[in-house]
């Protein structure tokens, strides 16, 4: 493991310099900035030679852990491996165009958007898609605005959105921003929505149910067809959060099980960059009766030519400037085309197989609060251990493994949510499983050692509480 480099300020020595360009050798008119306005230097700015500076930052960069240099079981919900060919294609010269370009000059770009829409329609069974939203929560908000507009067109937007207690935190936030009050529905003993409990909440005020399927426990909501029927009988809509689409991509089409609105995350399921700031993309698919409310711009086909509609009579209007994050769409289309229609479902099959392999191997070693079948992820609990979830997560760092998601979903005590995704080999999974077993043995025999872990990383256990309470975001010269 690399050591933590010294702070750049500490290795600075007065008088050292990196690149030195003498301004005197250039005539004044070639210097863009008026000489009088140039600073003489910045106080406390570090002085190093060029090579020292390069080494400093290279050594810092080497401390990064990413999916490119180690196992990263945060899964598709956070980040799965993005095949490099997508990046190559998104990097092709002249692929990006100015958003105000005349449509005649950007037919290829529009075709990319249109073809991706068609792929997503086919994969989800929805009637139509917009690719404009910038991320999942933006898509949720767009979807809830569409539901609001649709219900308003029927006479009453209604007041309440139901959300299960296992939901993603963004769901209540998005529904609230769209003007709805939230009512939480408890999960049953199996970790899924209880149909009878749901029916108790269905009244004329309920606009929609927002559910993630499979839910955040990785469990498929097996009553989904009855749930959507109960909602529709009540005049309410079913919003499906597609953050976990990786679990049944190419196998289940949400449009066929009653979803009225679904959002997908291109940066999750469709293998585009994520984490570290994106940009993301959260397309929305809607059923036929909601399609006229989609936001603009809409891409239409007329006589073999693609056109852009900037205004629709009944749509919710614009939700973002221009068309959305175009190069993310390029990566998603490249990903899908590389897989091919006949292979898309392998993503889900392998993701589910990998997660269940880990589940099977670790079941019995860790508490599994919900015993039902799980798909692309498995959620264990720290109940019965001498250490906490956080201690196990920290110890994993010593083995060069990025920890899984911890303490989510909230309905599980000390949740450890493990999602390996489809790209990991059996050897990688076996290594992870064996490391986990070693750690659990350590937890039993020497819990104190885990409570003080990690031991082999550049810095040991950080005081996260102190850091959160006394937030310091920039370096300041010590007074001493």
């Amino acid at each position, binding site marked *: 493991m690399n050591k933590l480099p010294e702070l750049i300020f500490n290795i600075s020595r007065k008088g050292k310099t990196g690149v030195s360009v003498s301004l005197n050798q250039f005539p004044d008119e070639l210097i863009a900035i008026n000489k009088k306005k140039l600073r003489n230097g910045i106080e406390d700015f570090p002085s190093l030679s060029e090579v020292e500076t390069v080494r400093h930052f290279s050594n810092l960069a080497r401390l990064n852990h990413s999916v490119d240099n180690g196992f990263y079981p945060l899964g598709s919900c956070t980040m799965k491996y993005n095949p490099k060919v997508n990046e190559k294609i998104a990097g092709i010269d002249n692929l990006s165009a100015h958003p105000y370009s005349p449509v005649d000059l950007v037919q290829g770009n529009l075709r990319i958007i249109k073809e991706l829409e068609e792929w997503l329609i086919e994969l989800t069974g929805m009637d139509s898609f917009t690719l404009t939203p910038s991320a999942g929560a933006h898509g949720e908000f767009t979807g809830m605005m569409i539901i609001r507009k649709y219900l308003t067109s029927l006479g009453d937007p209604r007041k309440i959105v139901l959300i299960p207690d296992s939901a993603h935190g963004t769901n209540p936030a998005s529904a609230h921003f769209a003007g709805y009050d939230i009512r939480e529905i408890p999960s049953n003993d199996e970790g899924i929505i209880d149909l009878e409990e749901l029916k108790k909440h269905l009244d004329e005020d309920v606009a929609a149910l927002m559910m993630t399927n499979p839910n955040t426990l990785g469990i498929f909501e097996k009553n989904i067809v009855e749930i959507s029927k109960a909602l529709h009988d009540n005049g309410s809509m079913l919003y499906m959060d597609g953050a976990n689409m990786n679990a049944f991509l190419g196998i289940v089409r949400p449009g066929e099980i009653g979803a009225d609105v679904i959002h997908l995350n291109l940066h999750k399921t469709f293998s585009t960059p994520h984490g570290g700031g994106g940009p993301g993309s959260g397309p929305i698919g809607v059923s036929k009766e909601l399609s006229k409310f989609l936001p603009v711009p809409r891409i239409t086909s007329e006589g073999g030519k693609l056109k852009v509609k900037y205004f629709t009579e009944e749509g919710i209007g614009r939700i973002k400037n221009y068309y959305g994050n175009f190069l993310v769409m390029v990566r998603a289309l490249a990903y899908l085309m590389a897989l091919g229609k006949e292979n898309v479902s392998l993503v889900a099959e392998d993701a589910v197989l990998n997660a269940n392999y880990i589940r099977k191997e670790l079941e019995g070693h860790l508490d599994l609060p919900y015993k039902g079948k799980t798909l692309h992820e498995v959620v264990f609990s720290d109940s019965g251990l001498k250490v906490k979830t956080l201690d196990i997560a920290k110890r994993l760092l010593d083995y060069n493994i990025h920890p899984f998601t*911890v*303490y989510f979903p909230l309905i599980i005590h000390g949740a450890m949510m493990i999602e390996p995704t489809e790209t990991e080999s059996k050897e990688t999974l076996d290594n992870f499983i064996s490391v986990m077993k070693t750690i659990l043995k350590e937890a039993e025999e020497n819990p104190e050692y885990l409570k003080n872990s990690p031991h082999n990383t550049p810095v040991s256990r950080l005081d996260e509480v102190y850091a959160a309470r006394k937030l310091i975001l920039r370096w300041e010269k010590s007074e001493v």
Partner: protein
Amino acid sequence: MDLTNYKFSKDHEWVKIEDDIASVGVSDYAQKEMGDVVFIELPEKGSSFVKGDACSNIESVKAVNDIFSPLSGEVVDVNTTLEDTPENVNKDPYRSGWIYKIKFSDPAELTDLLDANQYEEYLKGI
């Protein structure tokens, strides 16, 4: 600590009544479950809540948790010292860790709350 004058909701808030004012905080069990508290969003003084409304939230190193108002009424005071010392919720949840005071409008709601013994029994079933 003597909790005779405290009542508890099943969402793990406590209330302590003085005349028509109730102090509200979170139980010892809740603070342990949440872990170290790093930030508290206090309700606004003068705002009104219906019982069960999310009126404030507590951020710990693990997650952000809603505080559901155990009683209906108007917020008459908030514990601004928690802005600088959120750790009081962990160290002293029943005294200096109080979050807000509410002038409650419906004394009948008090009967829905548990006393300390009932709450302890309730925790055993979780």
